[in-house]
């Protein structure tokens, strides 16, 4: 009886410690997955921005985002990092464009809907030749 009691106590303590470490590992793995997905989204958006020479309307039609202000466009993503509506969004990518016609500068920020920022990139694009 005494042995069983000790076994149960030790098992309970070890299990609790392991569950705590499992939880931390799960959180870390989720953060890594979010960071990887955010990087992929940011890189893809940056290359699209360069390819369309900084034209936000063209960028939005390629990436599935929408222009939210004069120099700003946004893409919303759901929990699985698929493009979605704002109502289902868990993450978003915001592109802010500025600069002259010859050289445009875009700031890409990928954030969680709560506001935490995963990635922030500066990208430059040659403007369209008139």
């Amino acid at each position, binding site marked *: 009886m005494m042995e069983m009691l000790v076994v149960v106590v030790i098992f309970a303590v070890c299990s609790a410690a392991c569950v705590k470490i*499992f939880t931390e*590992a799960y959180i870390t793995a989720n953060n890594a997955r979010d960071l990887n997905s955010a990087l992929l989204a940011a890189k893809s958006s940056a290359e699209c921005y360069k390819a369309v020479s900084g034209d936000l309307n063209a960028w939005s039609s390629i990436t599935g985002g929408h222009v939210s202000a004069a120099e700003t466009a946004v893409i919303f993503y759901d929990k699985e990092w698929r493009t979605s509506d704002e109502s289902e969004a868990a993450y978003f990518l915001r592109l802010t464009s500025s600069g002259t016609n010859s050289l445009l500068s875009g700031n890409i920020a990928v954030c969680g809907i709560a506001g935490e920022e995963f990635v922030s990139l*500066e*990208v430059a694009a040659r403007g369209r030749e008139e």
Partner: protein
Amino acid sequence: MNKSGIGVGSASIVLIFAVLCLTIFTLITYMSANTEMALANAEAELVKSYYEADTLAERIIDELVSGASGNVLGAEIKSEWDWDMLADITEFSCPMSERKELYVKIALYEDNSYDILSWRMRDAGEWETDAALPVWTGEDSIEQITGAD
């Protein structure tokens, strides 16, 4: 026969086995998650430094098209006229990290238009061949090499 105290029975053996398995799986999961995070952080650093260099390269090209020459925005510009292309073949590198750089090569035409010939990430460090072969050449005696009296 009176048995008392804590004995090592089948329950203890099962416990040891279960805790051992649990601990191993937990540690593997934890290490795997940490490795994933470290890789993701390294990728984030690389992507950031790449786009910083990319932005600098675009600015340098903008300056070159505007007629700048010599060192532009801290980058050493090398230019050579190409009679076949009738263009100034211009190349420069933008640093990304201690060991990586973005190498850019463009053909700059007289009408201030340009074609990109190369735009790639490459190693910045010089290759150093280790040709040293630390073997006894026969010139010194064993005593000199070992320092023995």
